[in-house]
Protein backbone atom coordinates (compact mmCIF):
# COMPACT_ATOMS: atom_id res chain seq x y z
CA UNK A 1 0.00 0.00 0.00
CA UNK A 2 2.69 2.46 1.06
CA UNK A 3 4.90 1.62 -1.91
CA UNK A 4 1.95 1.94 -4.26
CA UNK A 5 1.27 5.47 -2.99
CA UNK A 6 4.94 6.43 -3.39
CA UNK A 7 4.95 4.96 -6.89
CA UNK A 8 1.87 6.95 -7.92
CA UNK A 9 3.39 10.17 -6.60
CA UNK A 10 6.66 9.48 -8.44
CA UNK A 11 4.82 8.77 -11.69
CA UNK A 12 2.96 12.06 -11.30
CA UNK A 13 6.23 13.94 -10.82
CA UNK A 14 7.75 12.26 -13.88
CA UNK A 15 4.71 13.35 -15.89
CA UNK A 16 5.17 16.94 -14.74
CA UNK A 17 8.85 16.78 -15.64
CA UNK A 18 7.98 15.65 -19.17
CA UNK A 19 5.37 18.42 -19.44
CA UNK A 20 7.98 21.00 -18.47
CA UNK A 21 10.35 19.57 -21.08
CA UNK A 22 7.66 19.58 -23.78
CA UNK A 23 6.66 23.19 -23.13
CA UNK A 24 10.26 24.33 -22.90
CA UNK A 25 11.29 22.59 -26.11
CA UNK A 26 8.08 23.76 -27.81
CA UNK A 27 8.71 27.39 -26.95
CA UNK A 28 12.38 26.95 -27.91
CA UNK A 29 11.71 25.41 -31.33
CA UNK A 30 9.09 27.93 -32.41
CA UNK A 31 10.29 30.98 -34.33
CA UNK A 32 11.02 34.17 -32.39
CA UNK A 33 11.89 34.48 -28.72
CA UNK A 34 11.15 36.72 -25.77
CA UNK A 35 13.47 39.49 -26.99
CA UNK A 36 12.24 39.70 -30.57
CA UNK A 37 8.67 39.79 -29.26
CA UNK A 38 9.47 42.41 -26.66
CA UNK A 39 11.53 44.72 -28.89
CA UNK A 40 9.40 44.12 -32.03
CA UNK A 41 10.84 46.26 -34.86
CA UNK A 42 13.89 47.36 -32.86
CA UNK A 43 15.02 43.73 -32.54
CA UNK A 44 18.53 43.98 -34.05
CA UNK A 45 22.08 44.94 -33.17
CA UNK A 46 23.00 46.29 -29.75
CA UNK A 47 19.46 46.49 -28.38
CA UNK A 48 18.88 42.81 -29.11
CA UNK A 49 22.24 41.85 -27.61
CA UNK A 50 21.51 43.86 -24.46
CA UNK A 51 18.10 42.24 -24.13
CA UNK A 52 19.59 38.73 -24.53
CA UNK A 53 22.14 39.65 -21.89
CA UNK A 54 19.49 40.98 -19.50
CA UNK A 55 17.11 38.04 -19.81
CA UNK A 56 19.96 35.52 -19.93
CA UNK A 57 18.92 34.22 -23.34
CA UNK A 58 22.54 34.08 -24.53
CA UNK A 59 23.14 31.02 -22.35
CA UNK A 60 22.80 27.55 -23.91
CA UNK A 61 19.30 26.05 -23.82
CA UNK A 62 19.97 23.34 -21.23
CA UNK A 63 21.43 25.87 -18.75
CA UNK A 64 18.37 28.06 -19.15
CA UNK A 65 16.08 25.07 -18.66
CA UNK A 66 17.89 24.11 -15.45
CA UNK A 67 17.81 27.62 -13.99
CA UNK A 68 14.14 27.97 -15.00
CA UNK A 69 13.27 24.60 -13.45
CA UNK A 70 15.08 25.48 -10.21
CA UNK A 71 13.16 28.75 -10.11
CA UNK A 72 9.83 26.93 -10.61
CA UNK A 73 10.64 24.46 -7.84
CA UNK A 74 11.19 27.44 -5.55
CA UNK A 75 7.90 28.93 -6.69
CA UNK A 76 9.46 31.60 -8.90
CA UNK A 77 8.31 31.66 -12.52
CA UNK A 78 10.46 34.59 -13.61
CA UNK A 79 9.24 37.76 -15.32
CA UNK A 80 6.42 38.29 -17.77
CA UNK A 81 7.14 40.27 -20.92
CA UNK A 82 4.20 42.64 -21.01
CA UNK A 83 4.68 45.19 -18.26
CA UNK A 84 7.75 43.31 -16.98
CA UNK A 85 5.92 42.20 -13.86
CA UNK A 86 6.90 39.19 -11.81
CA UNK A 87 4.76 36.28 -13.03
CA UNK A 88 3.91 35.30 -9.47
CA UNK A 89 2.28 38.70 -8.92
CA UNK A 90 0.33 38.39 -12.17
CA UNK A 91 -0.81 34.86 -11.37
CA UNK A 92 -1.70 35.20 -7.67
CA UNK A 93 -5.10 36.94 -7.87
CA UNK A 94 -6.07 35.05 -11.04
CA UNK A 95 -5.37 31.67 -9.44
CA UNK A 96 -7.52 32.70 -6.48
CA UNK A 97 -10.40 33.84 -8.72
CA UNK A 98 -10.33 30.65 -10.76
CA UNK A 99 -10.19 28.56 -7.59
CA UNK A 100 -13.32 30.33 -6.29
CA UNK A 101 -15.11 29.62 -9.57
CA UNK A 102 -13.98 26.00 -9.77
CA UNK A 103 -14.72 25.12 -6.15
CA UNK A 104 -18.17 26.67 -6.31
CA UNK A 105 -18.93 24.66 -9.44
CA UNK A 106 -17.62 21.43 -7.91
CA UNK A 107 -19.47 21.99 -4.62
CA UNK A 108 -22.75 22.47 -6.48
CA UNK A 109 -22.08 20.03 -9.29
CA UNK A 110 -21.06 16.84 -7.47
CA UNK A 111 -24.10 16.47 -5.15
CA UNK A 112 -26.49 17.30 -7.98
CA UNK A 113 -24.73 14.81 -10.25
CA UNK A 114 -24.92 12.05 -7.62
CA UNK A 115 -28.59 12.71 -7.05
CA UNK A 116 -29.45 12.79 -10.75
CA UNK A 117 -27.32 9.73 -11.51
CA UNK A 118 -28.93 7.67 -8.76
CA UNK A 119 -32.45 8.79 -9.68
CA UNK A 120 -31.97 7.95 -13.35
CA UNK A 121 -30.46 4.56 -12.52
CA UNK A 122 -33.16 3.51 -10.06
CA UNK A 123 -35.98 4.62 -12.36
CA UNK A 124 -34.21 3.34 -15.44
CA UNK A 125 -36.17 3.79 -18.70
CA UNK A 126 -39.08 5.34 -16.78
CA UNK A 127 -40.24 8.92 -17.16
CA UNK A 128 -37.74 10.60 -14.74
CA UNK A 129 -34.85 8.82 -16.44
CA UNK A 130 -35.97 9.73 -19.94
CA UNK A 131 -36.42 13.42 -19.06
CA UNK A 132 -33.18 13.77 -17.07
CA UNK A 133 -31.13 11.75 -19.55
CA UNK A 134 -32.31 13.84 -22.48
CA UNK A 135 -31.45 17.05 -20.65
CA UNK A 136 -28.01 15.74 -19.66
CA UNK A 137 -27.20 14.71 -23.22
CA UNK A 138 -28.04 18.21 -24.40
CA UNK A 139 -26.08 19.99 -21.71
CA UNK A 140 -22.98 17.82 -22.10
CA UNK A 141 -22.75 17.96 -25.87
CA UNK A 142 -23.35 21.67 -26.40
CA UNK A 143 -20.06 23.65 -26.25
CA UNK A 144 -19.43 25.77 -23.16
CA UNK A 145 -19.42 29.02 -25.07
CA UNK A 146 -22.87 28.30 -26.48
CA UNK A 147 -24.50 27.41 -23.17
CA UNK A 148 -22.80 30.40 -21.55
CA UNK A 149 -23.94 32.74 -24.33
CA UNK A 150 -27.50 31.39 -24.12
CA UNK A 151 -27.48 31.86 -20.33
CA UNK A 152 -26.45 35.49 -20.75
CA UNK A 153 -29.08 36.03 -23.46
CA UNK A 154 -31.92 34.48 -21.48
CA UNK A 155 -31.15 35.27 -17.84
CA UNK A 156 -29.31 38.57 -18.15
CA UNK A 157 -30.75 40.19 -21.26
CA UNK A 158 -34.32 38.92 -21.62
CA UNK A 159 -35.22 38.29 -17.98
CA UNK A 160 -32.78 40.86 -16.54
CA UNK A 161 -32.32 38.82 -13.35
CA UNK A 162 -28.53 38.83 -13.07
CA UNK A 163 -25.62 40.75 -14.52
CA UNK A 164 -24.38 39.08 -17.70
CA UNK A 165 -20.75 40.13 -17.57
CA UNK A 166 -18.34 40.23 -14.66
CA UNK A 167 -16.84 43.68 -14.23
CA UNK A 168 -14.89 43.29 -10.97
CA UNK A 169 -11.07 43.71 -11.13
CA UNK A 170 -8.71 40.76 -10.57
CA UNK A 171 -7.91 41.88 -7.04
CA UNK A 172 -11.54 41.84 -5.86
CA UNK A 173 -12.20 40.02 -2.60
CA UNK A 174 -14.24 36.84 -2.48
CA UNK A 175 -17.31 38.61 -1.09
CA UNK A 176 -17.20 41.02 -4.02
CA UNK A 177 -16.84 38.13 -6.46
CA UNK A 178 -19.65 35.92 -5.20
CA UNK A 179 -22.68 37.77 -6.62
CA UNK A 180 -20.90 37.88 -9.98
CA UNK A 181 -20.11 34.20 -10.30
CA UNK A 182 -23.65 32.82 -10.30
CA UNK A 183 -24.00 32.57 -14.08
CA UNK A 184 -20.44 31.30 -14.74
CA UNK A 185 -20.90 28.65 -12.04
CA UNK A 186 -24.17 27.51 -13.61
CA UNK A 187 -22.52 27.35 -17.03
CA UNK A 188 -19.58 25.25 -15.80
CA UNK A 189 -21.44 22.96 -13.43
CA UNK A 190 -24.12 22.22 -16.04
CA UNK A 191 -21.67 20.37 -18.25
CA UNK A 192 -19.74 18.81 -15.38
CA UNK A 193 -22.92 17.58 -13.72
CA UNK A 194 -24.19 16.07 -16.95
CA UNK A 195 -20.99 14.08 -17.51
CA UNK A 196 -20.84 12.81 -13.94
CA UNK A 197 -24.52 11.99 -13.70
CA UNK A 198 -24.19 9.74 -16.75
CA UNK A 199 -21.26 7.89 -15.25
CA UNK A 200 -22.94 7.45 -11.88
CA UNK A 201 -26.03 6.17 -13.69
CA UNK A 202 -24.24 3.45 -15.62
CA UNK A 203 -22.17 2.49 -12.59
CA UNK A 204 -25.28 2.06 -10.41
CA UNK A 205 -27.04 0.10 -13.16
CA UNK A 206 -24.06 -2.25 -13.41
CA UNK A 207 -24.07 -2.95 -9.68
CA UNK A 208 -27.86 -3.40 -9.61
CA UNK A 209 -27.47 -6.24 -12.12
CA UNK A 210 -24.76 -8.02 -10.09
CA UNK A 211 -25.28 -11.33 -8.32
CA UNK A 212 -25.04 -10.07 -4.77
CA UNK A 213 -27.70 -7.45 -5.31
CA UNK A 214 -29.99 -10.07 -6.87
CA UNK A 215 -29.24 -12.22 -3.84
CA UNK A 216 -30.14 -9.38 -1.48
CA UNK A 217 -33.42 -8.91 -3.33
CA UNK A 218 -34.19 -12.62 -3.09
CA UNK A 219 -33.32 -12.61 0.61
CA UNK A 220 -36.00 -9.96 1.04
CA UNK A 221 -33.81 -7.02 2.08
CA UNK A 222 -35.98 -3.87 2.02
CA UNK A 223 -35.46 -1.93 -1.23
CA UNK A 224 -34.02 1.29 0.18
CA UNK A 225 -31.82 -0.53 2.66
CA UNK A 226 -30.45 -2.58 -0.22
CA UNK A 227 -29.84 0.58 -2.27
CA UNK A 228 -27.93 2.35 0.49
CA UNK A 229 -26.05 -0.61 1.94
CA UNK A 230 -25.26 -2.77 -1.07
CA UNK A 231 -25.56 -0.73 -4.23
CA UNK A 232 -24.29 2.79 -3.59
CA UNK A 233 -20.98 2.00 -1.82
CA UNK A 234 -20.01 -0.35 -4.62
CA UNK A 235 -21.25 1.85 -7.42
CA UNK A 236 -19.71 5.14 -6.35
CA UNK A 237 -16.18 3.81 -5.91
CA UNK A 238 -15.36 3.32 -9.61
CA UNK A 239 -17.05 6.64 -10.34
CA UNK A 240 -14.46 8.60 -8.33
CA UNK A 241 -11.71 8.14 -10.90
CA UNK A 242 -13.92 9.09 -13.78
CA UNK A 243 -15.18 12.14 -11.93
CA UNK A 244 -11.58 13.25 -11.37
CA UNK A 245 -10.80 12.90 -15.06
CA UNK A 246 -13.91 14.90 -15.91
CA UNK A 247 -12.93 17.73 -13.57
CA UNK A 248 -9.47 17.82 -15.12
CA UNK A 249 -10.91 17.84 -18.63
CA UNK A 250 -13.09 20.79 -17.71
CA UNK A 251 -10.03 22.99 -17.17
CA UNK A 252 -10.25 23.68 -20.90
CA UNK A 253 -13.93 24.52 -20.65
CA UNK A 254 -13.28 26.88 -17.76
CA UNK A 255 -10.97 28.88 -20.01
CA UNK A 256 -13.73 29.41 -22.56
CA UNK A 257 -16.38 30.15 -19.93
CA UNK A 258 -14.15 32.75 -18.28
CA UNK A 259 -13.71 34.50 -21.61
CA UNK A 260 -17.46 34.57 -22.28
CA UNK A 261 -18.22 36.08 -18.89
CA UNK A 262 -15.14 38.32 -18.87
CA UNK A 263 -14.17 36.67 -15.57
CA UNK A 264 -10.71 37.72 -14.31
CA UNK A 265 -9.22 34.24 -13.86
CA UNK A 266 -6.55 31.93 -15.26
CA UNK A 267 -8.59 31.27 -18.41
CA UNK A 268 -8.58 34.85 -19.58
CA UNK A 269 -4.88 35.04 -18.74
CA UNK A 270 -4.26 32.05 -21.03
CA UNK A 271 -5.88 33.85 -23.95
CA UNK A 272 -4.24 37.19 -23.17
CA UNK A 273 -0.74 35.77 -22.78
CA UNK A 274 -1.02 33.76 -25.98
CA UNK A 275 -2.34 36.75 -27.93
CA UNK A 276 0.56 38.84 -26.61
CA UNK A 277 3.04 35.99 -27.17
CA UNK A 278 4.06 36.30 -23.56
CA UNK A 279 5.92 32.99 -23.60
CA UNK A 280 7.19 32.94 -19.97
CA UNK A 281 3.60 33.30 -18.76
CA UNK A 282 2.42 30.60 -21.17
CA UNK A 283 5.10 28.25 -19.82
CA UNK A 284 4.08 28.99 -16.24
CA UNK A 285 0.40 28.43 -17.08
CA UNK A 286 1.17 25.09 -18.76
CA UNK A 287 3.00 23.85 -15.68
CA UNK A 288 0.31 25.09 -13.28
CA UNK A 289 -2.60 23.63 -15.25
CA UNK A 290 -0.74 20.34 -15.73
CA UNK A 291 0.00 20.15 -11.99
CA UNK A 292 -3.67 20.67 -11.23
CA UNK A 293 -4.53 17.85 -13.64
CA UNK A 294 -1.90 15.51 -12.20
CA UNK A 295 -2.83 16.21 -8.58
CA UNK A 296 -6.56 15.73 -9.16
CA UNK A 297 -5.80 12.35 -10.72
CA UNK A 298 -3.43 11.46 -7.90
CA UNK A 299 -6.02 12.32 -5.24
CA UNK A 300 -8.60 10.22 -7.07
CA UNK A 301 -6.19 7.27 -7.29
CA UNK A 302 -5.35 7.50 -3.61
CA UNK A 303 -9.01 7.80 -2.63
CA UNK A 304 -9.87 4.69 -4.60
CA UNK A 305 -6.99 2.87 -2.92
CA UNK A 306 -8.06 3.90 0.57
CA UNK A 307 -11.73 3.13 0.01
CA UNK A 308 -11.21 -0.24 -1.61
CA UNK A 309 -10.40 -2.87 1.00
CA UNK A 310 -9.55 -5.45 -1.66
CA UNK A 311 -6.74 -3.38 -3.16
CA UNK A 312 -5.32 -2.76 0.31
CA UNK A 313 -4.98 -6.41 1.25
CA UNK A 314 -3.66 -7.21 -2.22
CA UNK A 315 -0.75 -4.90 -1.70
CA UNK A 316 0.01 -6.17 1.82
CA UNK A 317 0.17 -9.74 0.53
CA UNK A 318 2.67 -8.71 -2.09
Amino acid at each position, binding site marked *: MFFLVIKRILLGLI*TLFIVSLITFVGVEVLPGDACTTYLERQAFGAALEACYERLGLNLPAYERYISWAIGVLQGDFGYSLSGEMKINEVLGPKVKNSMVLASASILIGIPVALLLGIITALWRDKLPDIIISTVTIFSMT*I*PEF*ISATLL*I*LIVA*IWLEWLPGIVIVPSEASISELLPNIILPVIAISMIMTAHMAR*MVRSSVIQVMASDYVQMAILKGVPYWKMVFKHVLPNALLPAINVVALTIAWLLGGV*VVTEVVFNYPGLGRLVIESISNRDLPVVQALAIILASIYVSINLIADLMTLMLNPRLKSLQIKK
Partner: protein
Amino acid sequence: MKNKKEKQKNTFQKILEVIKTMASKPSGLIGLTILIFHVILAITSPLYVPYDYKAIDPSLMLNPPSSEFWFGTDSLGRDVFTRTILGGRTALTVTFFGSLIALLWGGSLGIFCGLVGGKIDDVVMRIIDAFLSIPWILAMLLIVSLLGTTTLVLIPALGFFYGKGIVRVARAATHDVIAKDFIVSARARGHSNISIIWNEILPNVRDAIMVEGAMRWSWMLLGFSSLSFLGFGVSPPTPDWGLMISNARGLMSFAYWAVLAPIVGLSSLIIGINLTADAFAKALGIDRSTKAPV
Protein backbone atom coordinates in the same frame (compact mmCIF):
# COMPACT_ATOMS: atom_id res chain seq x y z
CA MET B 1 -10.37 -13.44 -56.83
CA LYS B 2 -13.81 -14.79 -56.10
CA ASN B 3 -12.89 -15.00 -52.46
CA LYS B 4 -11.95 -11.33 -52.36
CA LYS B 5 -15.24 -10.30 -53.96
CA GLU B 6 -17.19 -12.32 -51.45
CA LYS B 7 -15.25 -10.70 -48.64
CA GLN B 8 -16.07 -7.25 -49.99
CA LYS B 9 -19.73 -8.13 -50.21
CA ASN B 10 -19.62 -9.35 -46.65
CA THR B 11 -18.11 -6.11 -45.36
CA PHE B 12 -20.74 -4.15 -47.25
CA GLN B 13 -23.52 -6.25 -45.73
CA LYS B 14 -21.99 -5.81 -42.30
CA ILE B 15 -21.91 -2.03 -42.67
CA LEU B 16 -25.56 -2.05 -43.77
CA GLU B 17 -26.44 -4.17 -40.78
CA VAL B 18 -24.66 -1.81 -38.36
CA ILE B 19 -26.48 1.18 -39.85
CA LYS B 20 -29.79 -0.69 -39.56
CA THR B 21 -29.15 -1.45 -35.89
CA MET B 22 -28.20 2.17 -35.31
CA ALA B 23 -31.40 3.44 -36.92
CA SER B 24 -33.59 1.00 -35.02
CA LYS B 25 -33.51 3.14 -31.85
CA PRO B 26 -35.06 6.62 -31.86
CA SER B 27 -31.90 8.37 -30.59
CA GLY B 28 -29.75 6.74 -33.25
CA LEU B 29 -32.27 7.54 -35.97
CA ILE B 30 -32.43 11.19 -34.91
CA GLY B 31 -28.63 11.41 -34.77
CA LEU B 32 -28.17 9.85 -38.20
CA THR B 33 -30.84 12.08 -39.72
CA ILE B 34 -29.28 15.26 -38.32
CA LEU B 35 -25.79 14.21 -39.40
CA ILE B 36 -26.85 13.28 -42.95
CA PHE B 37 -28.83 16.53 -43.20
CA HIS B 38 -25.75 18.54 -42.21
CA VAL B 39 -23.45 16.66 -44.58
CA ILE B 40 -25.84 17.17 -47.50
CA LEU B 41 -26.23 20.84 -46.56
CA ALA B 42 -22.47 21.31 -46.38
CA ILE B 43 -21.93 19.72 -49.80
CA THR B 44 -24.78 21.41 -51.67
CA SER B 45 -25.27 24.78 -49.91
CA PRO B 46 -23.02 26.87 -52.24
CA LEU B 47 -25.44 26.00 -55.06
CA TYR B 48 -28.44 27.74 -53.59
CA VAL B 49 -27.38 30.38 -51.06
CA PRO B 50 -29.50 33.50 -51.66
CA TYR B 51 -26.77 36.13 -51.09
CA ASP B 52 -23.00 36.57 -51.15
CA TYR B 53 -21.69 35.58 -47.71
CA LYS B 54 -19.09 38.37 -47.61
CA ALA B 55 -21.11 41.20 -49.17
CA ILE B 56 -21.00 44.05 -46.66
CA ASP B 57 -23.81 46.61 -46.86
CA PRO B 58 -24.01 49.33 -44.17
CA SER B 59 -27.56 50.22 -45.14
CA LEU B 60 -28.75 46.72 -44.20
CA MET B 61 -27.14 46.59 -40.72
CA LEU B 62 -28.89 44.45 -38.08
CA ASN B 63 -32.18 43.96 -39.92
CA PRO B 64 -34.55 41.65 -38.01
CA PRO B 65 -35.70 38.44 -39.71
CA SER B 66 -38.04 39.17 -42.62
CA SER B 67 -39.24 37.50 -45.82
CA GLU B 68 -36.26 39.04 -47.59
CA PHE B 69 -33.63 38.04 -45.00
CA TRP B 70 -34.97 34.89 -43.32
CA PHE B 71 -32.61 35.03 -40.32
CA GLY B 72 -32.01 38.79 -40.42
CA THR B 73 -28.68 40.50 -41.07
CA ASP B 74 -25.59 40.93 -38.89
CA SER B 75 -23.70 44.03 -37.76
CA LEU B 76 -22.03 44.39 -41.19
CA GLY B 77 -25.26 43.94 -43.11
CA ARG B 78 -24.48 40.38 -44.21
CA ASP B 79 -27.31 37.85 -44.60
CA VAL B 80 -27.33 35.56 -41.54
CA PHE B 81 -29.20 32.74 -43.34
CA THR B 82 -26.54 32.55 -46.06
CA ARG B 83 -23.73 32.53 -43.54
CA THR B 84 -25.44 29.98 -41.31
CA ILE B 85 -26.02 27.36 -44.01
CA LEU B 86 -22.46 27.86 -45.26
CA GLY B 87 -21.07 27.86 -41.71
CA GLY B 88 -20.73 24.11 -41.29
CA ARG B 89 -18.53 23.51 -44.32
CA THR B 90 -15.15 24.37 -42.82
CA ALA B 91 -15.97 22.79 -39.48
CA LEU B 92 -17.09 19.51 -41.03
CA THR B 93 -14.13 19.24 -43.41
CA VAL B 94 -11.48 20.11 -40.83
CA THR B 95 -12.84 17.84 -38.11
CA PHE B 96 -13.56 14.94 -40.48
CA PHE B 97 -10.02 14.83 -41.85
CA GLY B 98 -8.65 15.61 -38.41
CA SER B 99 -10.45 12.57 -36.99
CA LEU B 100 -9.09 10.38 -39.80
CA ILE B 101 -5.54 11.49 -38.96
CA ALA B 102 -6.21 10.94 -35.25
CA LEU B 103 -7.54 7.43 -35.97
CA LEU B 104 -4.57 6.52 -38.14
CA TRP B 105 -1.71 7.63 -35.94
CA GLY B 106 -3.44 6.92 -32.62
CA GLY B 107 -4.54 3.48 -33.75
CA SER B 108 -1.21 2.40 -35.18
CA LEU B 109 0.87 3.70 -32.27
CA GLY B 110 -1.54 2.09 -29.79
CA ILE B 111 -1.41 -1.31 -31.51
CA PHE B 112 2.37 -1.05 -31.77
CA CYS B 113 2.73 -0.26 -28.04
CA GLY B 114 0.35 -3.03 -27.05
CA LEU B 115 2.23 -5.50 -29.22
CA VAL B 116 5.78 -4.55 -28.23
CA GLY B 117 5.24 -3.91 -24.55
CA GLY B 118 8.18 -3.54 -22.20
CA LYS B 119 10.39 -0.46 -21.99
CA ILE B 120 9.31 1.20 -25.26
CA ASP B 121 5.67 0.88 -24.24
CA ASP B 122 6.40 2.42 -20.83
CA VAL B 123 8.23 5.40 -22.27
CA VAL B 124 5.63 6.10 -24.96
CA MET B 125 2.76 5.88 -22.48
CA ARG B 126 4.51 8.25 -20.08
CA ILE B 127 4.90 10.80 -22.88
CA ILE B 128 1.25 10.34 -23.88
CA ASP B 129 0.23 10.87 -20.24
CA ALA B 130 2.26 14.05 -20.14
CA PHE B 131 0.59 15.33 -23.31
CA LEU B 132 -2.82 14.42 -21.89
CA SER B 133 -2.16 16.50 -18.80
CA ILE B 134 -1.60 19.71 -20.78
CA PRO B 135 -5.11 21.13 -21.20
CA TRP B 136 -6.09 20.78 -24.86
CA ILE B 137 -7.00 24.41 -25.16
CA LEU B 138 -3.57 25.66 -24.09
CA ALA B 139 -1.73 23.31 -26.43
CA MET B 140 -3.99 24.05 -29.38
CA LEU B 141 -3.82 27.80 -28.81
CA LEU B 142 -0.03 27.68 -28.64
CA ILE B 143 0.31 25.73 -31.89
CA VAL B 144 -2.25 27.76 -33.76
CA SER B 145 -0.99 31.14 -32.59
CA LEU B 146 2.56 30.31 -33.66
CA LEU B 147 1.98 28.36 -36.86
CA GLY B 148 -1.06 30.22 -38.17
CA THR B 149 -4.71 29.36 -38.54
CA THR B 150 -4.87 27.88 -42.03
CA THR B 151 -6.73 24.61 -42.49
CA LEU B 152 -3.43 22.94 -43.34
CA VAL B 153 -2.19 23.69 -39.82
CA LEU B 154 -5.49 23.05 -38.06
CA ILE B 155 -6.16 19.59 -39.51
CA PRO B 156 -2.87 17.92 -38.43
CA ALA B 157 -2.78 19.85 -35.15
CA LEU B 158 -6.29 18.72 -34.19
CA GLY B 159 -5.56 15.23 -35.50
CA PHE B 160 -2.47 15.00 -33.33
CA PHE B 161 -4.10 16.27 -30.16
CA TYR B 162 -7.25 14.21 -30.37
CA GLY B 163 -5.31 11.09 -31.39
CA LYS B 164 -3.42 10.67 -28.15
CA GLY B 165 -6.53 9.38 -26.38
CA ILE B 166 -7.02 6.81 -29.15
CA VAL B 167 -3.51 5.49 -28.43
CA ARG B 168 -4.68 4.41 -24.99
CA VAL B 169 -7.83 2.73 -26.27
CA ALA B 170 -6.00 0.91 -29.09
CA ARG B 171 -3.29 -0.22 -26.67
CA ALA B 172 -5.80 -1.55 -24.16
CA ALA B 173 -7.73 -3.38 -26.89
CA THR B 174 -4.51 -4.91 -28.22
CA HIS B 175 -3.55 -6.03 -24.72
CA ASP B 176 -6.88 -7.85 -24.50
CA VAL B 177 -6.33 -9.94 -27.61
CA ILE B 178 -2.56 -10.39 -27.50
CA ALA B 179 -2.62 -13.29 -25.03
CA LYS B 180 -5.40 -15.19 -26.83
CA ASP B 181 -4.75 -18.59 -28.36
CA PHE B 182 -5.22 -17.59 -31.99
CA ILE B 183 -2.33 -15.12 -31.78
CA VAL B 184 -0.09 -17.75 -30.19
CA SER B 185 -1.01 -20.24 -32.89
CA ALA B 186 -0.43 -17.66 -35.63
CA ARG B 187 3.04 -17.11 -34.16
CA ALA B 188 3.59 -20.85 -34.08
CA ARG B 189 2.54 -21.11 -37.74
CA GLY B 190 5.37 -18.71 -38.44
CA HIS B 191 3.36 -15.66 -39.54
CA SER B 192 5.22 -12.37 -39.68
CA ASN B 193 4.44 -9.55 -37.25
CA ILE B 194 2.78 -7.51 -39.99
CA SER B 195 0.57 -10.40 -40.99
CA ILE B 196 -0.39 -10.94 -37.34
CA ILE B 197 -1.28 -7.26 -36.92
CA TRP B 198 -3.27 -7.13 -40.14
CA ASN B 199 -5.09 -10.46 -40.01
CA GLU B 200 -5.38 -11.28 -36.32
CA ILE B 201 -5.19 -8.12 -34.20
CA LEU B 202 -6.76 -5.46 -36.41
CA PRO B 203 -10.12 -7.24 -36.92
CA ASN B 204 -10.39 -7.59 -33.15
CA VAL B 205 -9.50 -4.06 -32.11
CA ARG B 206 -11.06 -2.23 -35.08
CA ASP B 207 -14.47 -1.74 -33.49
CA ALA B 208 -13.11 -0.19 -30.30
CA ILE B 209 -10.84 2.18 -32.22
CA MET B 210 -13.57 3.24 -34.63
CA VAL B 211 -16.03 3.98 -31.82
CA GLU B 212 -13.36 6.05 -30.08
CA GLY B 213 -12.70 7.90 -33.34
CA ALA B 214 -16.39 8.70 -33.79
CA MET B 215 -16.52 10.11 -30.27
CA ARG B 216 -13.34 12.12 -30.88
CA TRP B 217 -15.03 13.64 -33.90
CA SER B 218 -17.65 15.37 -31.78
CA TRP B 219 -15.05 16.56 -29.25
CA MET B 220 -12.85 17.81 -32.04
CA LEU B 221 -15.76 19.79 -33.45
CA LEU B 222 -16.27 21.26 -30.00
CA GLY B 223 -12.57 22.12 -29.77
CA PHE B 224 -12.46 23.56 -33.27
CA SER B 225 -15.48 25.79 -32.77
CA SER B 226 -14.15 26.92 -29.38
CA LEU B 227 -10.94 27.97 -31.13
CA SER B 228 -12.92 29.91 -33.74
CA PHE B 229 -14.97 31.47 -30.98
CA LEU B 230 -11.83 32.64 -29.19
CA GLY B 231 -10.53 34.09 -32.44
CA PHE B 232 -7.84 31.47 -33.02
CA GLY B 233 -9.65 29.35 -35.59
CA VAL B 234 -10.59 30.19 -39.16
CA SER B 235 -10.18 33.84 -40.05
CA PRO B 236 -12.95 36.22 -41.15
CA PRO B 237 -14.82 36.69 -43.45
CA THR B 238 -15.06 32.87 -43.77
CA PRO B 239 -18.54 31.91 -42.57
CA ASP B 240 -18.00 29.79 -39.46
CA TRP B 241 -20.43 29.21 -36.60
CA GLY B 242 -17.95 29.77 -33.77
CA LEU B 243 -16.74 32.99 -35.35
CA MET B 244 -20.30 34.19 -36.06
CA ILE B 245 -21.34 33.62 -32.44
CA SER B 246 -18.31 35.48 -31.16
CA ASN B 247 -18.91 38.42 -33.51
CA ALA B 248 -22.63 38.70 -32.85
CA ARG B 249 -22.34 38.22 -29.08
CA GLY B 250 -21.61 41.87 -28.31
CA LEU B 251 -24.85 43.06 -29.91
CA MET B 252 -26.89 40.16 -28.58
CA SER B 253 -29.20 42.37 -26.50
CA PHE B 254 -30.28 44.11 -29.67
CA ALA B 255 -29.92 41.55 -32.48
CA TYR B 256 -30.45 38.11 -30.94
CA TRP B 257 -31.09 36.50 -34.37
CA ALA B 258 -27.50 36.92 -35.49
CA VAL B 259 -26.34 34.82 -32.52
CA LEU B 260 -29.19 32.30 -32.35
CA ALA B 261 -28.91 31.05 -35.95
CA PRO B 262 -25.29 29.85 -35.70
CA ILE B 263 -26.00 28.47 -32.20
CA VAL B 264 -28.76 26.27 -33.61
CA GLY B 265 -26.50 25.16 -36.47
CA LEU B 266 -23.53 24.21 -34.31
CA SER B 267 -25.53 22.64 -31.48
CA SER B 268 -27.57 20.47 -33.82
CA LEU B 269 -24.47 19.21 -35.63
CA ILE B 270 -22.66 18.35 -32.38
CA ILE B 271 -25.72 16.62 -30.97
CA GLY B 272 -26.17 14.76 -34.26
CA ILE B 273 -22.59 13.48 -34.27
CA ASN B 274 -22.81 12.55 -30.60
CA LEU B 275 -26.04 10.59 -30.94
CA THR B 276 -24.66 8.84 -34.03
CA ALA B 277 -21.43 7.93 -32.23
CA ASP B 278 -23.39 6.60 -29.24
CA ALA B 279 -25.64 4.53 -31.49
CA PHE B 280 -22.56 3.31 -33.39
CA ALA B 281 -20.96 2.18 -30.11
CA LYS B 282 -24.13 0.39 -29.06
CA ALA B 283 -24.53 -1.29 -32.45
CA LEU B 284 -21.00 -2.68 -32.15
CA GLY B 285 -21.60 -3.67 -28.53
CA ILE B 286 -19.15 -1.29 -26.88
CA ASP B 287 -20.13 0.51 -23.68
CA ARG B 288 -18.76 4.03 -23.62
CA SER B 289 -20.83 5.56 -20.87
CA THR B 290 -18.37 4.78 -18.08
CA LYS B 291 -15.45 6.52 -19.75
CA ALA B 292 -14.25 10.01 -18.98
CA PRO B 293 -13.96 12.52 -21.82
CA VAL B 294 -10.16 12.64 -21.92
